[in-house]
């Protein structure tokens, strides 16, 4: 299963979001995923997905950001976006420029800095344990 999305460059974001706003679409969510790196030492990147609802159908815009990249805030177009952007800033370390309300890293006050920014290691499915066989402790 996959979803349909439009891949964007960061500088296209604001214009495309304004197009959605002009059609009366509702901002449903903004989320991020830390992408796994191909090899140790590679720079990790963050994938951002912006979802909009128009007449019950979901449309997604997607872009990829590297750590330290500055992404334009869409909170000037969709006011509620400030909450998503502050969350993503704290969890993934993404920097948004021009947020209407900037918590400056104090939204969640997490003890661990940018806890979601590192991609989850790919874990293999553990082998099935034979019934009756003693399990290692």
């Amino acid at each position, binding site marked *: 299963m996959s979803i349909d999305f439009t891949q964007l460059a960061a500088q296209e974001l604001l214009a495309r979001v304004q197009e959605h706003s002009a059609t009366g679409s509702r901002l*449903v969510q903004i989320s991020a995923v830390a992408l796994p790196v191909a090899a140790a030492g590679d720079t990790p990147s963050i994938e951002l997905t912006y979802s909009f609802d128009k007449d019950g159908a979901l449309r*997604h815009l997607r872009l990829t950001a590297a750590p330290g990249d500055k992404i334009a805030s869409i909170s000037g177009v969709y006011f509620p976006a400030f909450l998503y952007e502050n969350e993503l800033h704290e969890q993934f370390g993404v920097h948004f420029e021009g947020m209407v309300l900037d918590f400056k890293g104090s939204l969640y006050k997490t003890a661990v800095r940018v806890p979601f920014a590192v991609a989850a290691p790919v874990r293999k499915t553990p082998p099935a344990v034979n019934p009756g066989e003693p399990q290692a402790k």
Partner: protein
Amino acid sequence: MKTTIIPLGPQHPVLPEPLSFDLVMDNERVLEAIPSIGFIHRGLELLAPKRDFEEFVMIAERICGICSFMHGMGFCSAVEDTLALPLPKRAAQLRVILAELSRVHSHLLWLGLAADAFGFENLFMQTWRLREDVLDIFEETTGGRVIFNIVKVGGMRKDIDDATLARIAAKLESMRPQLKQITDIFLNDYTVKNRLAGLAVLTTAQAKELCVVGPMLRASGVASDQRVGSPLYAGLDWQVATEPDGDCYARCRVRVREIFQSINIISQVARGMAADGIAAKVTGAPNGESFFRAEQPRGEAVYYVRGNGTRFLERFRVRTPTFANVPAVVKLLKGVELADVPTIILTIDPCISCMER
């Protein structure tokens, strides 16, 4: 102009959970409200890559104690989508029944809290007394009153036999007169109306602009409900409850109507239960990504899962209804009297546990 900042929360008599607003005041009037959250943020989403996807249902259910079933169901539905796993009809029907029971108990909980907030404590007590009957149904059928552990990827863990379902439907029908008596007070009492009507109006245009969800959106005249078009609700006779006024009273009316509507839905489903099993066999592991939207009592919740073909998800995220509704409160509080602030915050039915998943 001299202003004063009054911190409201995180501990406040009308806030059942920690949410805080710094209210910039000019005398008794709010000029600006700055929200603070994060007092109980748990980072549960970060556990998804560390737990087998079938076991993670237990964690998803623990996002919230009020909508626990709905969170489990939403997570399972998103995973089932990535697995292209069809659900047996009986499992889908059981999910609808438990989801609607959750809505009844959540709305009764809210009505009680609202009554308490505007100082009608006897009404609070009577509303929660009725809510206990719904919790008793949960306990009888699932073994739990808060966390049910009855939903799983592919269907349900436990069945509820047809005789019990008929008895539950009859029980809910028998509660109607008492529910009507109590909800009539919310809808007609002079004091209640006086505290809620015309307060914190969100017009249809504003509701759309602020991207609010659930009863808050429907109380502004927008017929938006994720149950419409959902295969789980196909063939059922029900209509989206909307109110045109957009004020606190309209939000109360929507929730009252939805209580009776949920009882109707449960009765309809219980009359026509299928007998095709309660769970499909799960083979393979999630590969790909999916967004699933569920209509929780507080509004649309969005579940995102992304799998990589192993039994450990790469990412799970939930956007809860309160997360979508809090920005609107920032706007709604501007210009209101201090005494109305707790009531307004309460009418979005904030669930901080969900928000701080």
